[in-house]
């Protein structure tokens, strides 16, 4: 039992570190950006036409933007300790409320992308691994290299042109039903499947060549049971382990894809908050992403420990 708890305790410390670092770095980066934050915030609140020098001064005074930076940062950290993320400088609404809506939307998109990438990557990897070194393997490798090398916005635009503009099957943008999830989800899934198919391929080929699979055959088990009882679980270990890493790609891709498909998620919100110099929103969004990352990796740790007894003993 202690074997499982130790990595989880490690993840808890990591979560704390992530929270502090994310807050600090996003604060520092926001203040390193050129331009006057007060004028940007005023422009976002009242629109560029109504923005005047007095409006900017009012914003500065109201939000205390002329106070020393360490004081502003300390204030954020102090509030964070009471689980208060502050209010948006633009809308005045609590950051936590806005995040709740946007994070929810993003989780739907991430879930769809992950499911689609499994549907694409696992069969492709299995097929390539069973025919390692032959034509299906080479084709799967070529496809994976191409899809991973293409920037997300290029994949997304190609999908929009083909499925929304030419064929007219799916909407180019929006939020609501499953049809809206399909194109942005697929855009992310291609990049994810590129990596997971290669990991699946290597794991499948390695397990099929393993002495324990050969022994399972010669001890008399039929092939179906050899694969089910001795193949699947061993091959799944590296595939699951790499899921945690895939999340980096997913978060990165989400910022681009949500803007591209006008999808109201957390990545979209982050871009807007940066433009508007809405520091609490930027900090809150980055914090939510960072903590999600830690949480998912903790879940991946647990899954790996459940699959592979050697990891618990170590």
């Amino acid at each position: 039992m202690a074997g499982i708890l130790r990595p989880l305790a490690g993840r808890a410390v990591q979560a704390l570190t992530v929270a502090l670092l994310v807050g600090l770095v996003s604060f520092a980066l926001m203040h390193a950006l050129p331009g006057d934050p007060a004028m940007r915030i005023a422009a976002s609140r009242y629109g560029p036409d109504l923005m005047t020098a007095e409006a900017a001064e009012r914003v500065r005074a109201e939000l205390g933007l002329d106070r020393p930076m360490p004081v502003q940062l300390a204030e954020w950290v102090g509030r964070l300790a009471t689980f208060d993320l502050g209010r948006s400088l633009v809308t005045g609404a609590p950051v936590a409320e806005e995040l709740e809506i946007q994070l929810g939307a993003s989780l739907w998109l991430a879930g769809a992308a992950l499911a689609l990438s499994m549907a694409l990557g696992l069969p492709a990897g299995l097929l390539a691994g069973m025919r390692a070194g032959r034509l299906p393997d080479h084709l799967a490798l070529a496809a994976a290299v191409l899809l991973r090398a293409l920037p997300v916005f290029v994949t997304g635009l190609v999908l929009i042109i083909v499925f929304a503009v030419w064929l007219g099957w799916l909407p180019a943008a929006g939020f609501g039903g499953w049809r809206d999830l399909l194109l942005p989800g697929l855009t992310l899934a291609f990049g994810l499947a590129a990596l997971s198919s290669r990991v699946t391929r290597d794991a499948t080929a390695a397990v099929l060549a393993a002495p324990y699979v050969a022994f399972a055959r010669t001890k008399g088990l039929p092939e179906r049971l050899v694969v089910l009882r001795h193949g699947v679980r061993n091959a799944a270990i590296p595939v699951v382990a790499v899921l945690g890493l895939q999340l980096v790609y997913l978060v990165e891709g989400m910022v681009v894809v949500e803007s591209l498909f006008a999808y109201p998620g957390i990545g979209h919100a982050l871009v807007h908050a940066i433009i508007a110099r809405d520091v609490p929103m930027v900090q809150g969004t980055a914090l939510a992403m960072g903590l999600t990352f830690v949480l998912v990796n903790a879940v991946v740790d647990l899954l790996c420990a459940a699959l592979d007894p050697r990891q618990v003993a170590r």
Partner: protein
Amino acid sequence: MSAHLEVDRLRVASRDGVLVHDVSFAVRPGVPLTLLGESGSGKSLVVQAIMGTLPAELAASGRIALDGRDLPGLPEAERRTLWGRRIALLPQEPWLALDPTMRVLGQVAEVYRHVRGRPAGDSRAEGRARLAGLGLADAVHRYPFQLSGGMCQRVALAIARAADADLLLADEPTKGLDAALRDGVAAGLRGEADRGRSLITITHDVTVARVLGGEVGVMLDGRLVEYGPAAEVLARPRHDYTRRLLAAEPVAWPGRDRPVPGDPVIRGAGIAKTFGGRTVLDGVDVEVRAGEVVAVLGPSGSGKSTLGNILLGLVPADAGEVRRGPGLAPLRFQKVYQDPPGAFAPQRTLRRALADVGRRHGVAWEVFEGLMRRFRLGPGLLDRRPGQLSGGELQRFALARVLALNPAFLFADEPTSRLDPITQREVADLLHELAGERRLGVLLVTHEAAMAANLAHRVLALEPAAAG
């Protein structure tokens, strides 16, 4: 339960040539057959041809008949139904052949459940009983990585027995086991034969053939060069290769003259080490002098390798003191590893492996060339990768790489345990000569008492570690 196997003019060929030439023998219940030979002699191919597991690029011809039924003529699916039920295979290195993520009991019980079609509860009870019968009652809920090599070997035997096949094929069953475990496994196999099973064992260990008795076949370059009753073949070998094989056994080695040792090069006093609550070394004193071979003898887990690693400073001791000879640079204390392929980077040529050492430590290339001549290593081998060399060649390269650094002390960690008997003798001769020639102090770790007695000035016997 009885299986008669007849192999007549078996031939295994690849596109590049014939690998097994016209091998014929017969196996009947109760009389085990042992195929002796070094790696590459084709003995594994014979077993694979009987089992029907030859790689696709190899083709077998000739007759292999089990109770009169010709096996190669059967469709593949039908051949597979014989696996486990009529023919069982005891795999080599069972710690690799057991599923690392499944508990031991499951791996035994599934044979009863899925091969013999018994209900799940019965299968588990049967599995438990079989494991208990082999002294593994405490291990049923453990995973293979929690077992020793000898325990894994017994689990594999339980699995091979479970389906009750009457022909048992054992593929190098003692590979990687120490002397005590090796004798236990050989005796266990002998017991299978005594119970009326037909048994074919392939090995390069003459001791295994001696314990098994029955009949012996000696293979060389794909041919069965000698075949007859074990008592006769092992006592009065007719073929020259069989004679060399028997002469390569450490007990048969001629005595050696031992140079007079000089000053101590390294000395350890009161060395103690505990791993995870288990005491492996408890106040051991050891001293190695220039030109002297000191053998450390003991079963697996007795701390032999740990002692050498402590002397070299690779592992910290819990207590005790290590003192090196005065004026000897740290680089002059070196180690040769047990598993030659594991001691070289697999994707780099031997030339690169040696040149890197030369560049790092300022050793001229001529030094390596001289050592290679001395060790009978042709320059043609330099552009190959480690996987393309034999174990003996690689181990000689490992020695050359170490000796280029002009060591004063060499820790040889079971340097011959993974080698064929004839190669093992060559490497042992080399170690003996080097100790005399170069006034090298050698700490030789081994589990072969005969080798220790033959090579060493002094033998330090370590007791098996106390439990708890």
